[in-house]
């Protein structure tokens, strides 16, 4: 069955869940927890869950090699928790053997998905020692020489998600190769750049030796390569890492000539280089050998987009968590929200992507980089592509976008998320991908009919970003994934999604190709993604579907009903007076009502 793991409920009302997991919840206390194929019970224990919303709840906790499951034994307070161990970032002992006070002795668990869990245990006889040790071991398998659960599970799906993205096919869809751009396999065995994919699109004129020389001048050899090309005006989005200018202001003729080749490909008058960083940071990077393109790059202009680094984003989200979990800051909500700067960061990322999209749609090629070109660069290129290309707004297209711009181009998921790793304070961790999904959500809010997928897909993606149930987000780059045989030994998240596609479809989707979406990147129009960040708060309604969606379904039913009746009437009545009923009764072909046509006069 599908979606065995998207259920992480903190309570019975928590409903953004698949049907299978719900069934499992109906079953009696731990006896009938439905485990995934390959999932094994490790330990269970009587315990007390200190629910921040309804107080201490008695029940039983079960730990398997995949999840932490809790069910209350008290029928009045139905609390169920179903947390994949992958979502746990930190497990700590709370209180000591001698600590006083009710429920002061137990476990304190910090999760990556915006919540904390506390369990109280009996103080007698070191009752928490075994459960703590086992939880610690299975929550952080890589730190204990155990495999990630994705390698253990035996789950089967109808679709094979690994086949969703084939680089050459995707380039062909974009119209590549053509007489300006060629496909190169120079990185076939990751010799040019170990964090890049094997298939790259580069300027037709560039030679393999050029690429190697450019690689020497770009941080981690991440040379400028094509991500997307505009079908009509042939403007391109290229991505790379920072040039290795350093303190001495080194130049590299090959790099300069290479960028010139990119510019020449569609004869852009000026190539725009977007440096995602604030200019101060870019300057500071010179000290460590990096830097930015200077005046020596002719016919190029450099624009800084002022997006902060991974550490700033991590702290910002931490602050956001502080004001929404467990309790939502009541008295000064808006200024508290403002002080987290989360929405402001979202705004900067979006407005950077808007600038990129705008440049490209007006016919100018762009190059995007930050420091290493795997965080902010991925955000900008993928968001700009989402704005420019309606294909990426389909359910499958969006999967391709993530596979391409994030996974294949080496966003360091393993480091940023810390899959199976106990080192919760690792400075490499950062919610960059979460921020990207937030930006996508903002776009779906502003353009409710432009996306084929719905909010549930975004939630599912974020849930499995941590769950370690699928291979999709494991490891930092393609070379590592090959080495670990991810595609052979694990299942792709897209197998789950594409086996149950109808769950993730937006009923309002109105396909419209060739339209560039420019969201409004202003605090006045951005919203906090309440149904993600505050979803553990039972006060926030977990809407299975939006009221609008519900209404749409009701209307569909009504339409069916009327159509049936009309048909019945036509059959029953053969008199000529009923000729009205013979007019085409396919409502889809009905002309839009008059009132809309009056407004279609903009110049």
């Amino acid at each position, binding site marked *: 069955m599908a979606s065995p793991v998207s259920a992480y409920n903190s309570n*019975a*009302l928590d409903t953004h869940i*698949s*049907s299978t997991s*719900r069934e499992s919840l*109906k079953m009696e206390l731990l006896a009938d927890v439905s485990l995934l194929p390959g999932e094994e019970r490790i330990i269970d224990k009587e315990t007390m869950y200190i629910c921040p919303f309804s107080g201490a709840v008695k029940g039983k906790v079960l730990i398997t090699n995949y999840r932490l499951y809790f069910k209350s034994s008290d029928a009045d307070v*139905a609390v169920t928790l179903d947390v994949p161990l992958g979502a746990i970032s930190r497990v700590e002992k709370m209180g000591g053997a001698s600590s006083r006070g009710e429920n002061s002795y137990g476990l304190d668990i910090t999760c990556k998905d915006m919540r904390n869990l506390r369990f109280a245990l009996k103080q007698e006889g070191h009752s928490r020692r075994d459960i703590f040790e086992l939880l610690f071991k299975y929550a952080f398998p890589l730190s204990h020489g155990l495999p990630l659960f994705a390698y253990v599970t035996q789950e089967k799906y109808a679709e094979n998600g690994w086949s969703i993205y084939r680089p050459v096919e995707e380039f062909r869809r974009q119209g590549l190769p053509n007489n300006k751009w060629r496909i190169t396999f120079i990185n076939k065995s990751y010799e040019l750049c170990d964090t890049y994919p094997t298939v790259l699109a580069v300027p037709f004129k560039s030679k393999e030796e050029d690429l190697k020389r450019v690689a020497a001048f770009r941080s981690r050899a991440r040379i400028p390569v094509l991500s997307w090309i505009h079908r009509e005006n042939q403007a391109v989005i290229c991505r790379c890492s920072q040039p290795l200018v350093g303190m001495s202001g080194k130049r590299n003729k090959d790099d300069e000539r290479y960028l010139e080749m990119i510019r020449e490909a569609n004869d852009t008058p000026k190539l725009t280089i977007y440096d995602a960083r604030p200019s101060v940071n870019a300057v500071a990077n010179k000290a460590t050998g990096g830097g930015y393109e200077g005046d020596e790059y002719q016919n190029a202009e450099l624009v800084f987009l002022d997006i902060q680094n991974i550490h700033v984003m991590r702290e910002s989200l931490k602050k956001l968590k502080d004001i*929404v979990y467990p309790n939502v800051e009541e008295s000064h*909500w*808006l*200024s508290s*929200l*403002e002080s987290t700067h989360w*929405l402001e960061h979202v705004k900067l990322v979006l407005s950077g992507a808007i600038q990129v999209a705008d440049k490209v749609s007006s016919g100018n090629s762009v190059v995007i980089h930050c420091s290493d070109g795997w965080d902010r660069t991925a955000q900008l290129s993928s968001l700009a592509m989402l704005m420019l290309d309606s294909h990426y707004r389909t359910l499958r297209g969006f999967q391709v976008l993530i596979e391409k711009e994030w996974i294949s181009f080496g966003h360091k998921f393993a480091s940023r998320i810390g899959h199976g790793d106990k080192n919760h304070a690792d400075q490499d961790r950062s919610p960059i991908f979460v921020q990207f999904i937030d930006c996508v959500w903002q776009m779906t809010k*502003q353009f409710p*009919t432009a996306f084929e997928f719905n909010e549930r897909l975004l939630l599912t993606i974020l849930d499995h970003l941590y769950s370690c149930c699928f291979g999709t987000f494991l490891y930092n780059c393609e070379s590592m994934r090959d080495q670990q045989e991810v595609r052979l030994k694990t299942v792709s998240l897209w197998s789950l999604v594409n086996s149950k596609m109808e*769950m993730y479809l937006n*009923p*309002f989707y*109105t396909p419209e190709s060739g339209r560039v*979406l420019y969201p409004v990147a*202003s*605090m*006045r129009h951005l919203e906090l993604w309440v149904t993600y960040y505050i979803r553990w708060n*039972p*006060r*926030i*309604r*977990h809407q*299975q579907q939006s*009221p609008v969606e*519900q*209404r*749409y379904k*009701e*209307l*569909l*039913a*009504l*339409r069916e009903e009327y*159509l049936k*009746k*009309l048909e*019945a*009437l036509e059959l029953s*009545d053969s008199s000529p*007076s*009923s000729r009205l*009923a013979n007019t085409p*009764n396919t409502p889809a072909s*009905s002309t*839009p*009502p008059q*009132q*809309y046509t009056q*407004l*279609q*006069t*903009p*110049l």
Partner: protein
Amino acid sequence: MLTGSKTTFKVRQMLPDIKERMLSQSGVNARSRDVFGLRCLPGECVLQRAVMVRKKLTAREGRGWVSGTLFCTHFRVAFVPQDSPKADDNADPVLLGDHDVALASIEKVVVVGPNRTKLVTPNSSLKFTPEELVLYCRDLRVVCFLFDRLTPDAQVIEITYTIAKTYQPPKPGSVLSFQNAALGSVEMKQFLSNRHRNTHMNWYESASDWEQELERCGATGWRVSSVNDRFEMSTSLPRSIVVPQKVLDTELKKSFAHFNEGRIPRWCWRHPRGSDLMRMSSFQNNIYHEKDDIRNLEMILFGCHSSLCVVVELGEELPSPADIQLAHSRLRALCLGDISTSMSVPDDKWLSTLESTHWLDYTRSCLRKASEVACLLRGGHLTVALQEADDRDMACVVSSLVQVMCDPHCRTQQGFQSLVQKEWVMAGHRFYSRINYHRDNDKEEAPVFLLFLDCVWQLLSQYPSRFQLTDDFLLALHDSIHLPLFSSFLANCQRERCKRSQNIGQSYTPVNGWRDVLHPDSSSDPSDPPLPSVWDWSLQYSKHRRDRFTQPVPPIPPLQPLLNGNLNTNPDAHRLTDTIPGSVFLLSRGTFSCPANLLPWRSGTSGVYKKSHRRAPSSENVPGLERLLKAWALAEFPQGLTSTSAPQGPLDPFEPLLPLLMGPCMGLWRECYLRGALHAQAFSHPISANHPHPVERLAREVQQLKDKLAQVSTSTAIKPASMMAEPRRTDTNLNQNTNNGTFLFPASRPQSATIATAAPPPTSTNHQTSKGAPPASAPPSRPGHKDNGGSNKHTFLFGHSSVAEARPDQRYYPAPNNAKLPKSNGSSISS
């Protein structure tokens, strides 16, 4: 000489071009159009015009620009798009076209030239040719016109001057000239006096209107008293008030003196579970309470529920009018930015600045108070009396919010209009002073009504599928407030309205026989034009915009009328009625108490009461009451009370819509406040005007199908028998068909199938022809329906029972208190 000629030039600018005047005046009789397509009102003169102007369209209008001709008359700034369809010359005059701005709603005129922006006042002179003309309106709209290079410079400058000179700078006296410009012509007076008033709503003007409401709510034990018919008892109360049946008018008369402004406790509404909502002003303290008075006062206050009365004090936790005014002016400033400098709050300070306006805090506190009251009312048989010092501001907000939350009828357009009429217009909210049209009483100014509209919008945005009215309707109402043309808002109470209508001559007065009562007031001139009601929407909005005031296909479950005020389904009711008769509690800051001085006649000083009714203040039923409020708190913690708070939970129509009030759940009404042009606007629909939102499109489709079905069935129905054709005209007949409501539609019965189609759900006709059959949601208050008994039958009647039969029932009518609801719900959806 030179200076002289300059002045004459200026004067000449001001005078309408003679030719144009001739044109528009010649059109008066035939109501014909100006050559450039502007259809003038009778007597309206075009002062100036400019050709080849482009108007910026808002997100709602589809964005972009539309080209056309700009006019300035002494009533409005009008804009006629180039290719707008030729209007029907015989159609009724519409005050404002879709692109027009009334002069009275303009707050500031700003022109943008090459590299500069200038605020244009009546005295300013331009040193450059404007490229853009921006009108900032009081209703927060920002209308922007762009002058093409093809627009003659002279026209640009002259129309700018003309607008700057004729728009209504806030000063006393300008309102009247504006009214005269719009409505003062003989033809307009004639036209307005012949208008039919909307019969689908309740105007609460006469005793029978109130009786109709009593009947709709199933409120027994109450009667309509005309004791205030001459406004002698209370000048600010309406002529008819609803009081307990057992209190005689002679007894009633003595009670007025005990309340501030004579605003005695009056009945407002009955919850279907039997509780009554009342409102009153504060007690007059310096008055001696006779024994008989006390008996009467208690009878009035307790109404039908002799056991329990909760007095809800509105003063403490709600904003004062001054607070509201301050918050609103801050919100305006924030949303529009500094108009003259085009500066606005930096984006990174937006949230905290928005917070510091306190506007959202105030909407929250109103909603919280109303939620508390709604929870009390649903608990059973008690009287809730809202008490405010003068009972004319926050009592209006809270009483009407409670009804919007609890009474589905109030979520329809007609029901909402009736509600505003009942709780605001007739109840004596001082619209005239609060809006301060004349700009002569800044101290009193406070947009209390706009705060209420925002609260309703919050409810609408949290429960969109439970409303028949739309935010377009709320927006229209919001904007109309700023137009000093409507009798609804141009007076502080019914007495003032009566006075005015009396003075403008017999033909414009609703003749009800009280005219001789009042002495003509010299303050209003007999030549004042008659003022229409704001509910006469066709005066202001074209058909296609009015169509958007309601959802094309009403939400499911239907907004059914309340039929029976005595639904006794709540177990708590018994416990509450168990209490000692005569218990009064004060609800303040979320807790109940019975302070000694709550009722002044029971407190020690007045003495009489204690001697005769010695009774310790009971606090036994405080727990009972607190349980009711706890239900509200639990609603925010759904695991306790899943049935009431799950989003598409039980669609018990009497469950109040309790809003979530946490910070993240309160939104800003962007479509209203952020209409300004200073920053880019979000597209709500990427495909804009030509392609409505799929939901809308589908709704229209369903509507068309429904109409077609009606048409087809008409033609079929004529054949079998004449009796079949009858029911589709009026809903009276429809109702008669439905005494066996549930069994009306089943397709299995060959006969009933024809009935079903012959009687289209009345809503369809409602939307098609607004003057057709009464809306589905209209209270079936006509005699003959009372014995319809339980409302269940009607649930099906108005509920497109066809749908209910097509889909599993529990989806629409899940069993209440089903703790496992979310689960079953979820699985049915994912399937």
